[in-house]
């Protein structure tokens, strides 16, 4: 057979590039990822919480609530294990449907069986105190999430997490020497991880934004957040009537 024939045959076969193959395999049973709100979508590979993955969240409860909000609004259940002081009101303001937000504040000395049971039926399971778990227990939880198509969201370090979201607080806006109230908080969220998320992504967000939900921060509004904080600290000597 001549070489030209093979080339023409190859053109007729629908060739799938290897780069897109990975994303297809990412979707077990072809189910789409759990949706997240638009400002967070750019941080996550596939624009959502991929089913069966582990997404670690550091340093911000508001970030976790923002991650849960869009999915619970679409009928997905979420559970938070081991957090005794979650602000349910803040969750509502962030857009979480609290009727589908389950709290297990005291899972006992070993939260792993509780988290495993929840991963069976609840789509999004956030877990505090995961650092203290043994590597074996962590692996079995991740395997359970992968098998069930749920997403495990450990609050803290998690070796082998697909995405790690790190939240760094820049500044609070709204309160000034007695006037106003806390309106919004500017944060920088860094996403890093494995696979499709290996390239670090950074987003500057208002978390919480005005009124509660997460919003994109406009860079030109706060050129140097640290400096803003300093000036406020200096300007606080004003007396209050």
């Amino acid at each position: 057979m001549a070489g030209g024939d093979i080339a023409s045959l190859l053109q007729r076969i629908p060739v799938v590039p290897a780069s897109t193959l990975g994303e297809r395999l990412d979707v077990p049973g072809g189910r789409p990822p759990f949706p997240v709100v638009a400002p967070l979508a750019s941080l996550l590979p596939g624009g959502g919480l991929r089913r069966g993955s582990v997404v670690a969240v550091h340093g911000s409860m508001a970030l976790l609530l923002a991650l849960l909000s869009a999915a619970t609004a679409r009928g997905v259940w979420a559970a938070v294990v081991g957090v005794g002081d979650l602000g349910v009101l803040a969750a509502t303001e962030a857009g979480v449907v609290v009727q589908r937000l389950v709290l297990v504040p005291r899972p006992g000395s070993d939260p792993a069986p509780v988290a495993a049971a929840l991963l069976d039926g609840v789509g999004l399971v956030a877990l505090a105190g995961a650092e203290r778990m043994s590597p074996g227990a962590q692996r079995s939880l991740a395997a359970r999430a992968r098998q069930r198509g749920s997403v495990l969201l450990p609050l803290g370090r998690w070796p082998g997490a697909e995405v790690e979201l790190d939240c760094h607080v820049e500044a609070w806006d709204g309160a000034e020497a007695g006037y106003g109230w806390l309106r919004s908080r500017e944060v920088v969220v860094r996403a890093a991880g494995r696979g499709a998320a290996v390239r670090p992504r950074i987003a500057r967000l208002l978390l919480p934004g005005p009124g509660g939900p997460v919003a994109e921060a406009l860079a030109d509004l706060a050129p140097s957040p640290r400096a803003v904080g300093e000036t406020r600290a200096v300007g606080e000597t004003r007396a209050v009537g």
Partner: protein
Amino acid sequence: MAPARVMVVWCPDWPAVAGAAAAGSAAQAPVAVVAANRVVACSAAARAQGVRCGQRRREAQGRCPELAVLADDPDRDARLFEPVVTAVEALAPGVEVVRPGLVAVPARGPTRYFGGEPTVVERIVDMVATQAGVQCQIGIADGLFAATLAAQRGLLVPPDGSAGFLAMLGIAELHQPAVTGVDRSAAGRAGVDRAGAGRAALVDLLHRLGLRTLGAFAALPVDDVASRFGLDGVRAHRLARGLDERPPARRDPPVDLTVTRRFDPPLGRVDAAAFASREPAEQLHTALAARGLACVRLGIGSCTGAGEELHRVWRCAEPLTASGIADRVRWQLDGWLTSRGSRPSAGITLLRLVPEEVVDGQALQRGLWGESGEDDERAGRALVRVQGMLGPEAVLIGVLGGGRDPTDRVHLVPWGDDPTPARDANPPWPGRLPAPSPSRVPARPLPAEVFDDAGRAVGVSGRGSLTGVPYRIAVDGNPPRRVLSWAGPWPVEERWWEPGGGRRCARLQAVLDAEPLAVLLVCETGRWWVEGIYE
């Protein structure tokens, strides 16, 4: 709409039969029951000798000198009838006792179960004869009235044939004390009964008008009957047309549905418990389903070999299926046998399933518009599983209600409980903090101290203003941190009108240095607390 198919079990001459049984006389002996000097019931032997209902006692005794005359006693009739009802109920649930001697049962279920009306009739007649020792006749027709008349003739009227069956019968059949609900004994004692007398007069009138059969009466237009004969006439007309005055109401058997199982040897392992829980769960569900019920609150109790008593109630948003009951029992036993803190010291020897709250079985149906979706069902199973591991109060759902601070406005209820807020969210709550709210609300407020730039403690004056400018804040015994910015104070006075019940406090938001950390502080009786953390 045609009335439901009804089976009527009729014991002929029941007062006489019951009276003879109570007096210990033979069933074949001539017996008459007399109320107010009139015969109200007599046995077949007495009837053969010319005794009739309505005769005077002396006249009946004249016709049949060996007649045993018994006083009328409705209590005796009812008491002796109970075995008959039980016998019928054993084969056909939903028994309605129309009066002692007459039982109505919806015929559809038993007919389909036993595979045909003649089979059911045969089995029930046998059952009543063997268990209660009483002869009975059975009729099946559409509607209670037609079925009663069919039972008196021992007929099975085909479906939709009631009107035709009734049309051939005489107009006097309308006067049926059993069906019209006239109390026989009351009528006998009082001599007259208005409803009964009214119906008897109606029958007499219709007869004199030339309407000799029920069919002739049924052929009259209903509005003409209404305008001439009134409400009772319309009811009689409905009966004559083969319609029902009312459908038979179910009698729920007042039995204890608790299922109890003993285990020997005691259960000590989870897999054995899982296996053992299946059968009692199935039994409870079957017992409930046979009565058209389903369980929404299930009590699971157990005793251990060491005499410990464990009991837990499972509440479910949806009625439990057989597998749902089995799952809960298994999870509960699993939870008891594997819990670390309160593990029983011996194996489980007794299991008790108590349906604490039941609903109609139809509530088992799924919502039409997918309210009970697959996701919700899966999540529900997982949550119930966790409740089995940690106890029902370990799995919580937040309910938003009214109030001013983030603690007040949220009310946590165990999953499965009624999610009703403690306080109404609708009335205005002045002094409520604007959004965003703190993302962490400590269950117990953390102590805090607020200092000004000279290191003096800052408080809130009686007029609701700060006594100094916050410069450093120490939270929960930690070293003080610089204040980057702050807002407030917002004084709140709650329920000041209640003697001793009021609350006076002031709130302050502060952003602390290092990585900016915002906290919500509240000053109450001179002390500062951290009520929320904006993390």
